[in-house]
């Protein structure tokens, strides 16, 4: 079993982030242990393979269109924000005007069938339940997000 210090030395030497003392220490360890020697060779083979690989370049048109695509995305974000903002305000206003009327007529109009009254109550309860459920999910995913720790903003 190779200890963490030796593994760290192997990594540092492979990645050329070692001091002369590190290299001496690893060479000493490798001379004394076949296991260390084998692991060093194994890791070196991987390093040799990965260091002779590179990114596949996309077509030049990708780069030509890149900034325009970013620009379109930012523009659309602003457009969506305006549409959503306006929509939310208008919907809130419509609800504010319509809901009291609807509730009043549900309450006072005895001619309304029971089914309609029950549907209205079901709709209100459903909307409330959805709201609570979505809020709870958002809260729990935010507190349990495994990638949150690694990202600082």
């Amino acid at each position, binding site marked *: 079993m190779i200890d*963490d210090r030796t*593994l*760290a030395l*192997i*990594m*540092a030497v492979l*990645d050329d*982030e070692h001091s002369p003392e590190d290299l001496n220490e690893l060479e000493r360890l490798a001379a004394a242990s076949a296991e260390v020697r084998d692991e060093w060779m*194994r*890791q070196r*083979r*991987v*390093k040799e*393979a*990965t*260091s*002779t*690989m*590179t*990114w*596949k370049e*996309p077509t030049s048109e*990708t*780069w030509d269109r*890149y*900034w325009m*695509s*970013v*620009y379109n*995305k*930012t523009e659309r*974000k602003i457009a969506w924000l305006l549409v959503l903002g306006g929509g939310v305000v208008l919907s809130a206003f419509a609800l504010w005007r319509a809901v009291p009327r609807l509730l009043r007529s549900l309450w006072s109009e005895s001619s309304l069938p029971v089914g309609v009254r029950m549907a209205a109550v079901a709709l209100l309860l459903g909307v409330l339940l959805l709201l609570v459920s979505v809020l709870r999910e958002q809260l729990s995913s935010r507190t349990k997000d495994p*990638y949150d*720790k*690694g*990202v*600082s*903003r």
Partner: protein
Amino acid sequence: MSDADDSELITRAKAGDTAAFGALVTRYMRQAYFSAIGLVGSREDALDLSQEAFARAFHARKTIDPDRPFYAWYYTILRRLCFNLLRDRRTHRQRLEEGGHWLEALSAAAIEAPDAAVERATERAEAHRRIAKALATLPDVEREALVLKEFEGLKYRAIAERMGTPIGTVMSRLYAARARLAKALEGQ
């Protein structure tokens, strides 16, 4: 504009100069695309996410500190978008494209003499094929550490800053990634 340094472009972008932000995008688009492809392993997603991250950076440009490296700040946005996509993919049981779709061998001339043995070239091609295949199966954070080291050529300290982890963690993730690739190379 293209000669201006990052700090100057950021200051102008913060003042509402879209062209200055465009110059920053043009300067870092390749790095952004390749960072994303190393994380999500799909060309289309990498293009879309790197552009989306720039769009978000544009909307948050008031918070950029002109005295700090722009790309390190941008990378935190890109990284979050990429990891969110990976999490969604896991939910939908989708897999990464094999590395062979987004990696290739350096030209032989760049790495060895032209008279190198054909046998050696075949051996190397097989090693590349196995590595490319195994890359897609690495855990996300191990693949990220390996990509930042091998394909972006960053030092441990820079990788640690990008990943928001101590250097020791970077080294252990690199070791774990390479150990898995070693197994793939040995055909296990």
